[in-house]
C-alpha cells in the first residue's frame, strides 16, 4: 500500500505526450464520454443521500402534527421556538465537548508529528520494533479494549472528568497519525534537512522548521478526520461522562425536552437539537472543504 511515486515517470509521461503530438489532443485522457448520464445518476444518488438531512432540518422547523400529516412538506411558518427549546435542553454540552475535542485533536497532532519525525529521521536501535508496536494497533479493533479501558479509567479515578475521555482519545489517534506522517516526512527531500544541518540546526529545529511546515496539509487533514470522529463518538463518552458533564452526542441521544415545551412537538424539538449538533462540523466542512477532499485521499494513499 505504499504509493510514493517518484516524479520521473510522471514527467516522462507528460514529455512523451507532448512529443506524440497535438493532433489527437484532448484535455483529458480519452475515456468514453459518460458526462450526461453520469451527472444524472450522481444527482439522483446525491438527492437520496441528502434525504435524512432535509428531513431533519425541515421538520426541526415544524410542529408534530404537521410532520405526521406530511413528513416531507415544507414548513408553513417556521417554528424557531423548537431551536430555543432544544438549546435549553442540550446547550450545556457544547463548551465541554468543544474543549475535549480540541485538546484531543491538538494533542494528537503534536505527539504524532513528533513520533513520526523520530521514526523518519532519527537513527536508533529498536526503531522498527517500536514502529510496529504502534502500527500493530491498527489491527486491534476498538471494541476489544472498550470495556477494559472503561475499567482502567475508573481505576485511575478519571470517571466523570474530561481527562477520562481526552487521554484515551489521545492514545487512540496515535497509530494512524504516526504511520501516515512518517511516510510523509520520509518523502521530504533529504537536501532540505542537509542544508539545515549545515546551518547548525539540531533535531528540534529541523523538526520545527522543516518537518512541521511541510507535513502541514496532511496534519490538517488528519486533524479534521479526528474532529469528525471524536465529535460523533458515542459509546465511550456515554460510559465515562454522564449528566451535566455529557458530550453533545450523548446529550442529544438521551434528550428530554424542557418540561414547558409543547408535548406534541417533542420529536421536532429533538430534531432541532440534532440540527444544532451538526452545525460545528458543518462550519468546519464548509470552511475547510479543500482539505477534506484532497487530504482524505492523500492520507489513504500513505497508509
Amino acid at each position: 500500500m505504499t504509493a510514493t511515486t517518484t516524479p520521473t515517470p510522471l514527467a516522462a509521461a507528460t514529455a512523451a505526450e507532448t512529443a506524440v503530438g497535438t493532433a489527437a489532443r484532448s484535455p483529458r485522457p480519452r475515456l468514453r464520454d459518460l458526462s450526461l448520464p453520469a451527472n444524472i445518476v450522481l444527482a439522483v444518488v446525491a438527492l437520496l443521500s441528502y434525504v435524512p438531512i432535509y428531513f431533519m432540518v425541515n421538520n426541526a422547523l415544524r410542529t408534530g402534527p404537521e410532520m405526521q400529516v406530511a413528513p416531507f412538506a415544507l414548513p408553513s411558518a417556521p417554528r424557531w421556538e423548537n431551536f430555543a427549546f432544544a438549546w435549553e435542553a442540550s446547550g450545556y454540552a457544547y463548551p465541554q465537548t468543544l474543549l475535549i475535542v480540541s485538546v484531543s485533536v491538538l494533542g494528537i497532532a503534536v505527539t504524532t508529528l513528533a513520533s513520526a519525525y523520530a521514526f523518519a529521521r532519527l537513527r536508533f536501535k529498536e526503531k522498527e520494533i517500536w514502529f510496529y508496536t504502534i502500527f500493530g494497533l491498527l489491527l486491534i479493533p476498538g471494541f476489544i479494549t472498550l470495556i477494559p479501558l472503561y475499567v482502567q479509567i475508573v481505576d485511575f479515578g478519571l470517571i466523570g472528568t474530561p481527562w477520562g475521555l481526552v487521554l484515551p482519545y489521545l492514545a487512540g489517534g496515535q497509530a494512524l497519525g504516526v504511520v501516515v506522517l512518517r511516510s510523509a516526512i520520509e518523502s521530504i527531500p533529504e537536501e532540505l534537512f542537509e542544508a539545515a544541518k549545515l546551518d547548525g540546526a539540531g533535531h528540534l529545529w529541523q523538526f520545527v522548521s522543516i518537518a512541521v511546515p511541510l507535513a502541514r496539509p496532511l496534519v490538517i487533514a488528519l486533524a479534521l478526520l479526528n474532529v469528525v470522529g471524536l465529535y460523533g463518538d458515542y459509546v465511550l463518552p456515554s460510559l465515562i461522562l454522564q449528566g451535566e458533564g455529557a458530550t453533545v452526542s450523548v446529550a442529544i441521544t438521551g434528550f428530554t425536552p424542557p418540561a414547558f415545551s409543547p408535548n406534541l412537538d417533542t420529536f421536532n424539538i429533538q430534531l432541532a437539537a440534532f440540527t444544532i449538533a451538526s452545525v460545528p462540523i458543518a462550519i468546519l466542512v464548509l470552511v475547510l472543504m479543500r482539505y477534506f477532499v484532497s487530504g482524505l485521499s492523500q492520507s489513504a494513499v500513505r497508509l
Partner: protein
Amino acid sequence: MSAAVAAPVRRSTAARRHVLERLAAVGFLLPTLALVLVFCYFPAFRAGYTSLTRWDGFNAPEWVGLENFVQVFADADFRQSAINVAIWTLFGVPLAIIPSFIVAELIFRLRSDRLQYVWRAIFTAPLIIPPVVSVLIWQFLYGPEGPINTVLSTLGLESLTRSWIADPQFALFALIFLGFPWVSAFNVLIFYSGLKAIPREVIEASALDGAGRWRQFFTIEIPLTFGQWKLLLVLSIIGVTQNLTTPLLLTGGGPGNSTLTPVLYMYQGAITYGNYGFGMAVGTILFVVVLALSIFNMRILRTSE
C-alpha cells in the same frame, strides 16, 4: 601527535552524537509510547486476562481458566449473535463498498475537473451529520408512523406497513440497510484517488484499442484499484463487526435476539450484567475472528493481484 589526539576525540564526538540521537528519539517518542502502552496495549492485555477470570468489576478477579469460553460457545444467544453478524457482514460490506465505488467511478469519468470537484464536495458534505444523529433519524424513518409507511400507504400497500425495527423478521435487515443509499464520503474519496492514480497511458492505449466503457471498467479500472478495494474490504469488515452504536441505540438486540450482535452481547455481558469475564471472552473470540478474516483477505487479494 595531532592525529593521535584527534582520533579518539573524533570517536568520542561520534559516540556523543549517537547518545544524543538516542536521547532525542526518547524525547520525541515518549508521549506516543506512554499513551499507547497505557491506554491501548494494557487494556488489550487486560481484556485477554479478564476473559480467563470470573470478575464482577469490583471484587478481586477469580481465575477460572477457559470456563468463560466454554460457557460462551454453549450459549444459544451467542450463536444467534454470530449468525446475525455473519448476515450483517454479508450484506453490509458490499453496501459499504460498491455504491461508493460507483459514485467515484462516475465522478472520475466526468470531463470537467471543476465538476469533478463539485461532486466530490457534494458527497463529502453529509459528513456533517454525527453518526448518532443519522441513526436516530433512521429510527424515525423506520417507525410505525414514519415516512416509509406513509409512502407505502399512499401507494395502497397498507398491508406492508409495520414498525420495521420492532418486527423480528425485518429488524436485522432494517439495521443493515440503514443509511440508504450508502455512499460514504471516506470511501468515495479513497476510490477516487485510486482511479486518479491509474497511469494515463493505460487508459489512452485501451481507448485506441477500441475498448468500450464496460471493457475499460472491468479490465482497467477495477483491477488497477485493487489496493483500494483491499483496504476498504478490511476496514468495512472491522467496521461492521464492531458497530455497537446502531443496535445499542435502536434495538438493544431485540426484538427477541433478532438484532443481537457479538459486540453488543459483549457490552451487555460486562456493562449491563456486570459479568466482565464472560463479556471479555466474547470480545476475545470476536477479535480472533476479525483478525483471521483480515489476514485471510490480505492473502487472497494479494495472490489474485
